């Protein structure tokens, strides 16, 4: 079996009396899309937060790329190659789409302490960023301030930023949310190719996309993984149906 790139074991996070993640064990293997689904409030975003470091776990361990990252800061984990998007889009609103992506590209180069060369004349950086924008289909919107992008466009922008980081794994928290049918389809196609670049931990409520993309699915309910399996296994699982899917088919 291939060594997983991301390995989470027994992760626990409490908010006061509420146990938001309750001993989650999960892994992400090279080349796969691992979908994480579950009812609202199950703890999916909380889990993503812990993996990328915006929340600190109460106990349990997170290994990434052969290293224990549980104690590292957000920035350090990002530099190791954890790329993520947020459930509610998070961008630098005054910057254009292009500069947002350039920021990620410069971070990837680890060169934020250069004080002299103007970034906007740095053709290398611009080209890299434009390439990413092109991949998500935002070329035409490159020079628009991110604040003026529509909801869907911001999601695309976030993905472009994760791409520019050349991440070793992607953590995508509901990337389809707010995208129209057309956008969802395009994004689905795009994620399908993205898995060659790096594996994806995909949190998503859009079941069409999940079923089309996922190699494996884990179902999180009340902070616990109640089932892990292939699309078919999960679709057939009665507990999953009642807890999450309803009569979706």
């Amino acid at each position, binding site marked *: 079996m291939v060594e997983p790139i991301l390995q989470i074991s027994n992760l626990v996070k409490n908010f006061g009396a509420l146990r938001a993640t309750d001993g989650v064990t999960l892994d992400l293997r090279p080349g796969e899309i691992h979908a994480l689904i579950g009812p609202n409030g199950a703890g999916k975003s909380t889990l993503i937060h812990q993996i990328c470091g915006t929340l600190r776990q109460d106990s349990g361990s997170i290994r990434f790329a052969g290293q224990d990252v549980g104690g590292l800061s957000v920035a350090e984990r990002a530099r190791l190659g954890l790329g993520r998007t947020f459930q509610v889009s998070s961008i630098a609103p005054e910057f254009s789409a292009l500069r947002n992506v350039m920021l990620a590209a410069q971070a990837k180069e680890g060169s934020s302490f250069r004080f002299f060369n103007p970034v906007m004349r740095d053709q290398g950086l611009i080209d890299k960023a434009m390439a990413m924008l092109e991949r998500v289909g935002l070329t035409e919107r490159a020079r628009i301030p991110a604040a*003026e992008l529509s909801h869907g466009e911001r999601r695309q922008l976030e993905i472009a930023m994760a791409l520019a980081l050349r991440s070793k794994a992607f953590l995508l928290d509901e990337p389809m949310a707010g995208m129209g*049918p*057309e956008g969802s389809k395009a994004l689905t196609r795009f994620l399908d190719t993205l898995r060659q670049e790096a594996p994806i931990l995909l949190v998503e409520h859009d079941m069409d996309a999940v079923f089309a993309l996922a190699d494996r699915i884990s179902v999180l309910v009340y902070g616990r993984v109640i089932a892990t399996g292939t699309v078919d296994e999960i679709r057939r699982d009665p507990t999953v149906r009642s807890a999450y899917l309803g009569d979706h088919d």
Partner: protein
Amino acid sequence: MLLQVENIATFYGSSQALFGVDFAMQEGEAVALMGRNGMGKSTTIKSICNLMPPHSGRIVFGGKPTDRQPPHKVARLGIGLVPEGRRCFPNLTVHENLVAAARPGQWTLERVNDLFPRLKERHAQMARSLSGGEQQMLAIGRALMTNPRLLILDEATEGLAPVIRQDIWSAIRRLKDEGLSILVVDKTLSELLPVADRCVILENGKSAWSGKPADLTTELQDRYLGV
């Protein structure tokens, strides 16, 4: 007519987002507002609520023009908004979110709690720490508590789990059956269309098509919605 949107044009600063949106709604009707990303659905809704007052054109709600009215007056005419991105008050508890702007009427705390039992469980929690889906329920509950004549839902089920989504749709259907008028934006056509009495499609900030869901052919869907 409950709501008439007459050829409105709306600007964000100097950039124009709406170029002539035009449609009307009857009392008790459920209208689906559709269109691709960035076509102006949310802007139309903001214009109706006078959050982004239209530059030209006219909006009449319940027989009263809404121009030059501050948003709170427009809201009191009977519009309840569930905005894009939810916008719950993060520093208020669930309970406080619900009652802060409540106006008397048939919708009470009990009824909202019946509709979304999850909110009852979380009633003392700060809204900022709710999960996305919980926030969506809260936003709907909050709008209902103002006892509107017209409920506007922008991205009604965004980010909701399938089971909950079904709950929300059935709730919307129930609200409609009770006679509430509903203007709704949602991207899941398969769930949206059965609820809607009529569809209005926007393209590039203009009304492009309007008609019954049954008349929305796959060809039209492909052309306007990219399905």
